[in-house]
């Protein structure tokens, strides 16, 4: 039930960290200015939204769930907030409504998984489609929703650098630290690991498994909302089209890449940070090398495959490490 790897064993997290360091080293030799402080900050900033989403996803996966509705609930909640702002509503109304919407989605996800006992992958997949459909039909008419000019200062905040770091980077690192501490030291955090490791045993030992599951999905929906707010600050708009894109898979990728097992209970927040950083380093370096979109995709895919192969070689699967439900 331990979140980390056993002492002395090389886990996927360490492998990905090593690959990240190697890739980082190669880029710093190849690219002038790659090592500048400004570039390193910008590298983290470009993946901070992905990383924040990854934290929420990690919490659900650690508890042997998954939240495929994150991107849909994020984009609809934020787009609805922008629609309200554009209609002249104050932020003090629009933001709480968006929060309420996200909490509602989280509770519904939790009820479907915990009480109706639908497997999380199907429940949240269906919820994502439902949220998007409901949102597009009742709340948000257009795909692209711009931040109104009156609220431009929200976007301008992004240029402010408290602590010398951009707001998205602070949000990502802050959330990661909070999630790490909560999972490690709070009772509910340990419960999530217990549930992920063995839900039956957790229930027998008195963990309120069903209500914990609901909580878990509410947290992931709220984290998604935060990621959406950061995204809106960066690009001054929200395009609900991202729901039909690959963002949700990218989020699962950074989570799994760093070594969080899809079967729950194994891995930690550091895994998400490491996975996110590797993606950030690759995106940044390949953009600086001005590689084409297709070449970038090929290289990204090869490095990821390499990481998986290396992990299988170092940690071969056997009866003891394999778990029921492992994907």
């Amino acid at each position, binding site marked *: 039930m331990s979140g980390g790897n056993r002492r002395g064993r090389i886990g996927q997290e360490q492998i990905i960290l090593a690959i990240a360091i190697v890739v980082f080293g190669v880029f710093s030799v190849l*690219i002038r*200015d790659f090592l*500048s402080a*400004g*570039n390193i900050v*910008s*590298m983290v*900033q*470009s*993946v901070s*939204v992905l990383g924040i989403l990854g934290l929420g996803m990690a919490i659900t996966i650690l508890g042997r769930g998954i939240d495929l509705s994150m991107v849909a609930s994020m984009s609809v909640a934020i787009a609805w907030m922008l629609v309200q702002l554009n209609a002249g509503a104050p932020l003090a109304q629009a933001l709480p409504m968006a929060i309420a919407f996200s909490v509602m989605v989280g509770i519904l996800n939790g009820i479907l998984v915990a009480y109706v006992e639908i497997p999380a992958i199907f429940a949240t997949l269906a919820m994502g489609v439902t949220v998007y459909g409901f949102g*597009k039909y009742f709340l948000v*008419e*257009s*795909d*692209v929703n*711009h931040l109104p*000019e009156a609220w*431009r200062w929200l*976007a*301008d905040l*992004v*240029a402010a650098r408290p602590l010398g770091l*951009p707001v998205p980077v602070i949000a990502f690192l802050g959330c990661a630290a909070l999630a790490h501490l909560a999972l490690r030291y709070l009772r509910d955090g340990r419960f999530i690991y217990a549930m992920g490791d063995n839900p039956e045993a957790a229930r027998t030992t008195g963990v309120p498994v069903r209500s914990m599951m609901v909580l878990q999905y509410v947290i992931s929906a709220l984290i998604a909302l935060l990621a959406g707010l950061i*995204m809106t600050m*960066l*690009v*001054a*708009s929200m*395009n*609900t*089209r*991202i729901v*039909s*894109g690959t963002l949700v898979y990218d989020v699962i990728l950074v989570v799994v890449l760093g070594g969080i097992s899809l079967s729950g209970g194994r891995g930690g927040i550091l895994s998400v940070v490491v996975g996110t950083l590797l993606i950030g380093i690759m*995106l*940044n370096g390949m*953009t*600086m090398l*001005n590689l*084409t*979109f*297709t070449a970038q995709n090929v290289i990204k895919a090869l490095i990821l495959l390499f990481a998986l192969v290396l992990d299988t070689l170092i940690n071969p699967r056997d009866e003891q490490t394999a778990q029921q439900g492992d994907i």
Partner: protein
Amino acid sequence: MDYKKMVKTGLACAVLSMTAGVVLAQDSVAPSYYEALKGKKVGFVPISMGFDLTQGWLAGMQRQADDLGYEIIVRDPNWSVESGIQAITSLIEEAPDLLVIQNNDNQSYNRLVQQAAAAGIPVIQVQQSVETKSDAYIGPDWYRIGTVTAQALVDKCGAGTSGKIAVVEGATAAPASILMKQGIEDLVAKNPGVTIVSSQAADWDASKAFAITATVLQQNPDLCGIAGFWDVADTGTAGAIREAGLEGKVVLATSGGGSREAGCAKVESGEFSVYNSYNVAGQARDLNDAIKMLLQAKLPAGSAPFALLSPLVQITKDNMTPSSCWTLDEIGKSGG
């Protein structure tokens, strides 16, 4: 001439002139015009409803359809090429009098355009065209948008600047994106003072445009200008410029449908330095004109293809007027 004869002649003249008057008042145009359009069915398959271009076209087309008593059948594939193929296939089965389709690329709907023509249904392609020419193409000359965008940057990034420009492309496989890029490269090649230091695809996405621009600005802090490919994605490009504290220092030239929110508002706030609008309100008018022409002419489908390339309007802070851009509300009320 006796009195009786005079009366008779007068009467005859009066009768004649009255008949002539009736003949003159009998319009030779309007009845057949209304008849050609009344009760007709026009199928519309955009790549997705719900964004400024398609909403603007539909608002304009719907207004004319309501006015003239024909029907617009909208099938929304929501960004999915497969759904689009299904929608067009089933529409061909339903045999509307005309099809308006927006292509995702220059391949996917190629066979469907041929099938529609074989079934005798005229097709208007909008914004992007497949290889098969159909009855009408309405949309921009993408190559020209590329050259115009690049020219704006060449003008501002001449002597005294670094001459460095970056290109934030659309999707690498989209013909619109390929043509714009070609236009930019060709024009830059003729101007040795200007160099392209980076050319990256943002996949029409604001977040990706942000990430690319942020990185490029780190690598080239002396960057003079950026060529963007679409206003919606370039809110992200502008965001990265703002975040780097370079607003007003880096020239951002981009293009789009000319909606007030996505276009003029950004020019006014200084986020876009130069904005080339292909004016969706004008395109809606072009669509309506093409619909009226094709439904009246009744030529065999595909027999006389023509194009109406959307005129470009270059909008900057200096020449912008309240009517430079449009809103959906305006098109719905009085456009098209």
